């Protein structure tokens, strides 16, 4: 083809050509039809967004440099979120048992309050260790800011620690674990029910604020959906139910109580599943960091250890157990037998605990992948 023109100006397709230039390190565009894997299909199904590399590459960015800073948080915060959730959930569950439980359910309260305090103990050190200047931790108490979940969290954690501590002491006094002297007598006079309600409010706060904390950021995967708080609080409930259930199955507890816990666990998981699916759907494209399978994205861990192994599987098992349990006539006569140990429920609960941990881990780590994805960050900010 002879071109008589002096110079032909190769204009179109400008975008594509431009992409070629500025992003040659991404080895241009991959137009090869891509056979999507099961995880990818799951991701598309749950988030309602199918990654489209060609159209994403056409979006403008600056050399794909991140458009927001990566979070600094790692294992300390993951464990803090997990333990905090357990502490909160256990307290709330224990309080519900205290307020509304039958006599045999007292054990739930007892175990719950102790578990709450034990789970709470590592939280402050974890938080402090995470600071750039741990010795300046106390500066957190300099202000009280409604808009800052971190500030509120510190105050909330402080208050809840108070409740959890006192409650556990009261419980311990009741249980005679602290010996018998005027102090314990004084403590045991404090009615648990009085502490349960305000304590539970702060418990719910502690269980949920961590999700709010992540949402009140500019990291797309955390902040687009407003369901992370709900998801975390639901997970706090389900994991702590599982934790108490595990403890009870180890130390032994009334079968009836355990059965109640099983039902609660089942219901909690159902709510958690609902929250999670709502979260994924509302996060849409930004959830890619959590559910995607590219390097640094959390998909493989999320789907196996959290969504599959840590939520759907135990829920299905629990469902089966409950169905089986309801078909089998319950041995109401065995009321006299005080304890039951182990069983399938133990596995379910352990799976739930695992799922709860991996929920925190994958969500926090997804923040890293998400912050590195400039295109999604910029897309997220187009509104």
């Amino acid at each position: 083809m002879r071109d008589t023109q002096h110079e032909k100006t190769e204009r179109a397709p400008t975008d594509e050509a431009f992409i070629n230039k500025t992003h040659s390190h991404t080895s241009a565009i991959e137009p090869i039809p891509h056979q999507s894997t099961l995880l990818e299909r799951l991701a598309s199904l749950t988030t309602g967004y199918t990654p489209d590399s060609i159209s994403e590459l056409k979006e403008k960015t600056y050399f794909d440099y991140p458009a927001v800073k990566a979070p600094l948080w790692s294992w300390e915060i993951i464990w803090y979120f997990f333990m905090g959730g357990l502490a909160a959930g256990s307290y709330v569950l224990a309080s519900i048992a205290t307020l509304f439980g039958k006599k045999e359910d007292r054990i739930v309260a007892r175990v719950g309050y102790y578990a709450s305090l034990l789970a709470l103990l590592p939280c402050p050190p974890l938080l402090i260790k995470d600071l750039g200047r741990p010795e300046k931790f106390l500066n957190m108490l300099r202000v009280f800011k409604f808009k800052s979940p971190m500030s509120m969290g510190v105050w909330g954690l402080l208050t809840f620690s108070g409740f959890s501590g006192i409650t556990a002491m009261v419980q311990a006094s009741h249980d005679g674990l602290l010996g018998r002297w005027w102090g314990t007598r004084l403590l045991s006079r404090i009615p648990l029910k009085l502490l349960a309600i305000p304590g539970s409010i702060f418990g719910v706060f502690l269980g949920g604020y961590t999700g709010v904390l992540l949402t009140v950021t500019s990291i797309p995967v955390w902040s687009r959906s407003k369901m992370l708080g709900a998801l975390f609080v639901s997970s706090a409930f389900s994991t702590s139910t599982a934790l108490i259930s595990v403890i009870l199955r180890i130390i032994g507890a009334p079968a009836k109580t355990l059965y109640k816990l099983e039902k609660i666990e089942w219901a909690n998981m159902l709510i958690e599943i609902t929250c999670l699916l709502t979260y994924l759907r509302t996060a849409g494209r930004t959830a890619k960091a959590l559910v995607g399978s590219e390097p640094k994205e959390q998909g493989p861990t999320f789907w196996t250890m959290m969504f599959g192994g840590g939520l759907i599987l135990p829920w299905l098992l629990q469902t089966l157990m409950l169905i089986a349990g309801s078909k089998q006539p319950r041995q109401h006569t065995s009321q006299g037998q005080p304890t039951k140990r182990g069983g399938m429920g133990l596995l379910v609960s352990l799976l739930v605990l695992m799922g709860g941990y991996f929920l925190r881990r994958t969500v926090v780590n997804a923040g890293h992948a998400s912050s590195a994805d400039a295109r999604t960050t910029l897309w997220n900010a187009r509104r």
Partner: protein
Amino acid sequence: MPGLGTTLGRGGATSFPQDLVNSDCILIMGSNMAEAHPVGFANVMKAKDRGAKIIHVDPHFSRTSAVSNLYVSTRAGSDIVFLGAIIHYLLENQVYFHDYVVNYTNAPMLIREDFQDTEDLNGLFSGFDPASGTYSNQESWDYQRDEYDKPLTDPTLQNPQCVLQIMKRHFARYTPELVESECGVSREEWLQVVQALVENSGRERTSTLCYAVGWTQQSKGVQIIRAGSIMQLLLGNMGRPGGGVLALRGHASIQGSTDVPTLYDLLAGYMPQPAEMLSTKPESQHEPTSTTWGARQDKHVHKNTQQTLQEYIDVTGQKLGWWSNVPSYIISLLKAWYGDAATADNDWGYHWIPKITGDHSHINTSYAMLDGKVKGYFLLGQNPAAGSTNARMQRKALAQLDWMVVGDLYEVESAAFWYKGTNGEKVDPATLKTEVFFMPAAASTEKEGTFTNTQRLLQWRDKAIDPPGDARSDLWLIYQLGKRLKKLYADSTAPRDQGLLNLTWDYEMEEPQPDSHLTDEPDAQLVLKEVNGYYVTQTNSDGQVTQYDLHNAPHVPTFTALKTDGSTACGSWIYSGVYPEPGRNRAASRISDGKMNLDWGFAWPANRRILYNRASADPAGKPWSERKKHIWWDAEQHKWVGNDIPDFPPDKAPDYRPAPDSTGMDAIAGTDPFFMKPDGRAWLYAPTGLKDGPLPAHYEAIESPVQNALYKQQSNPAAKYHRDRKDNVLIELGDPNYPFVITTYRLTEHHVSGPMTRWMPWLNALQPSLFAEISPELAQERNIVDKGWMVLRTPRGEIEARAMVTRRLRPLRIRGRIVHQIGLPFHWGFQGKSTGSITNDLTHSVLEPNVSIEEAKAFLCDIRPGRLSSSEHNVGRKEH
């Protein structure tokens, strides 16, 4: 800058960067101004906002191009085609500024009938001697003259021998088609440039031309500058606000170091160094290079020797124009140097000044060094091992020295060549004899002194603190060395040592500087006083004569006070006036008035800011236009007045006409703005003073991928080739092994070869590595990966660089063929905190004939992907 010197009279920028805001169009060519002079470029940005058109013509799309209105991508080394075509266009379409050209340039002068043009001799002018490779006989280039040796003219410009007609013929084949085929610039784009210039020149409007080493570092650099100046003269832009030619200089005091020269062929104030050329061959062959001014000898005085002061004056002075003042300048200089020992009886000590016997310029000296002829070397703030052309040869040459002294802040490559090589190359100190003295130098903030910047402006620096440790100023080093040498020779009676013994050498500080612990620092103000000039003797009204020494002498107010009778001493006449009286160092004056700022520093000569500003008024002395008025003739006061110091005899009326037999400044008419030239006019055509022809002609770079389309003569016939040197192998035309054009440039983030920047973490973080810029097309052709490594090779050396594949580089179509160009910064070396290959290992050492500057802006190379083998396991570079 003899390009400007020969054309206009003085080898300095005709204007100043701040005047750019008055421009209506700014053509930047041969300069990466935004990157090399960002603060000067701020004025371009201001001008652009005020509506000026900014045009950048360059092989490499740089930050300058990015903010221009028009960027024109051109082939390195084709500048004269581009400019020649503009000149052709102006002449052919008669869109030149007629009144300006007729009155202020030598367009009407008649040239001798025996002159032959490149059109007649296929690329050569008359007078070329192929045996010596020089224009040994330039007589035919001269004017036709009357009985008083004054040129004949034809104001109608019709005579076929007049300069304008000769130029018309000379540039006839410089056409838009030629621009298209040789520069790779479409004729539409070229026409846009011309039109922008034409529209923005004339009575009401002015355009500026900015250039820098993109022009000077070519084997025909002077002629490119000439072509640019001719264009500006034809457009009538010289000597006017917003006009002129702005030579952008790259070092704090590079202008100062040519004004008060550390150059072999110049004495202070552009008087040439006395010469006694070795061979009996025609003198022009070994004529000294004329760094910034251009030779000025009056064609009708021929002396073979300069053994006496009178002979020197005969050769270097002029009968006509300002240079008739040479006697007072040279005698005052000799008085400054030799003091009381300089008397009329001993020719003012003239014989003590060494005579040059050939080309002792830097590269030639390096070759002499390589041959073992140079034993000792002083390197004060310069780094040839990385910064000079053919750097590998430079390092070899240093190894042939007996001793060298390096004065610098950091241990630069030139100080470390004896134990370290480039790219991890092994150097065995046991085989290298050179004795090295490293003298730590004071930084500019740690000493007082003067810099002369790109606009000829002298600015004094106060001293902030003492230098650290044993670091001392170079002034101290030279002063103390001089004192020691005088002591060593104190007992000598040998005639050859008497110059040294008679040298005035007393710059002792009278009072120690406050807050300083240094007691033996010389007084820089005293040195400046000597440079300014002082009265050696003064006679009062009673006829009483008072003798003075430097310390107590009255200052000379300006160079017009200099005398031939030995009563004045002056270190550099053009600087006279900078320190006119005690306590009044005008270089240290810092008063900004928001207008011409005449009290901020001191601009030589005589504090004039726009040179040749007589040309800002029409022949009758009225401004060409209200919009562009600068100075004008005030008939009532009978003097030139205006915004600037008039660059003209202040009371010479526009209607003054010299008598036919007048000489000196009397021969300059009231309409002759370029009075440094003997005919008072700017030289479109240079009848004398250049070694490669009276008019610019296009020659290809010494290494070029294409044949010269215009002439049989491929490249500058008068260039100094150093062909016999085995380390200066040149790439022959058509060599398929070296197909790519390469051009070098500065980045904003570093300074020259890096001695002042590569030790600084802040700057290193901004540009951490040497890289080469290549087009995606070339990268594809040679399998070079973006961000990967690549090797560049010439017969002189090989270097490695990171590959920056970018569309800012663009393949050109040159005569139906694709020519790829490579862009390469040159800031790295093997010392410092950021290291990399030495770009100058690639360059050759063919020199421009007039100024002996090498060609680093256009040469050929080959490239391949990968690294140099020696550096693969080299220092754990971060880039891995």
